[in-house]
């Protein structure tokens, strides 16, 4: 055998390695943009209605919220906004922790606290929207 490659042979060098399975960071990059686009409408709409329209925050009370949540439209709006905003914010802070926490241990604990707080908040918010009782006294 000479050192000259046999041109008739197929190229047996391994192709550049590509990670198998889903690319989490790429999906996270796409999610930030997709959710951000929807949140621009949901959150700015929410802030405009709650803080600027009709006297803003001064008119908000139990009865006001009861009136809004009697409509499935606003329930769905608030539920979607809760989930997307929490996931968007949690993922953003996950990236920031990755940028600034130097040791793997610090990163692990900071992210653990973050995920715990966010999961509890999403769960609580969802529960409140679904179990709201307008006749509560």
């Amino acid at each position: 055998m000479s050192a000259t490659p046999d041109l008739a042979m197929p190229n047996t060098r391994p192709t550049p390695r590509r990670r198998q399975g889903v690319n989490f960071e790429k999906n996270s990059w796409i999610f930030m943009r997709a959710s951000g686009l929807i949140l621009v409408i949901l959150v700015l709409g929410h802030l405009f209605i709650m803080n600027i329209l009709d006297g803003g925050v001064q008119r908000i009370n139990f009865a006001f919220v009861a009136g809004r949540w009697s409509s499935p439209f606003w329930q769905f709006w608030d539920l979607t906004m809760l989930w997307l905003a929490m996931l968007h914010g949690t993922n953003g802070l996950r990236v920031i922790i990755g940028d600034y926490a130097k040791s793997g241990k610090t990163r692990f604990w900071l992210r653990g606290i973050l995920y715990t707080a966010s999961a509890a908040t999403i769960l609580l918010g969802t529960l409140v929207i679904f179990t709201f009782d307008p006749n509560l006294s």
Partner: protein
Amino acid sequence: MASTGTLYRGGVSMWSWVAHRITGVAVLFFLYVHVLDTALIRVSPDAYDTIIASYKTPLVNLMEVGLVGAVLFHALNGLRVMAVDFWERGPRLQKQMLWVIVGIWLLVMVPGTFYMMKHTIESLFGAA
């Protein structure tokens, strides 16, 4: 500034990136608080009305203006980031787009601040 072909190294473009991170983290921390205060609506009407009353005080009302300003910047700059990512002319126009969003921000925040704080201004200084 020397043209290095780098988008966000130094100058106002880098600071827009810094501001995006700071406003994002601030809004997330407010969200935790906001879901908790809204959860009081499941406890009793009184509990909810009491916590919401604190949102109507002059100091917290001012902080709401800060919150809306932070969210609005984050939203507008997020749209700019997407334009840089997906629009072919985006990277070249990123700095002009920054001035556009700063302009829109001011245009919304000046009247927005007035309407958000109308009641507070009247309660502190009397109706005009």
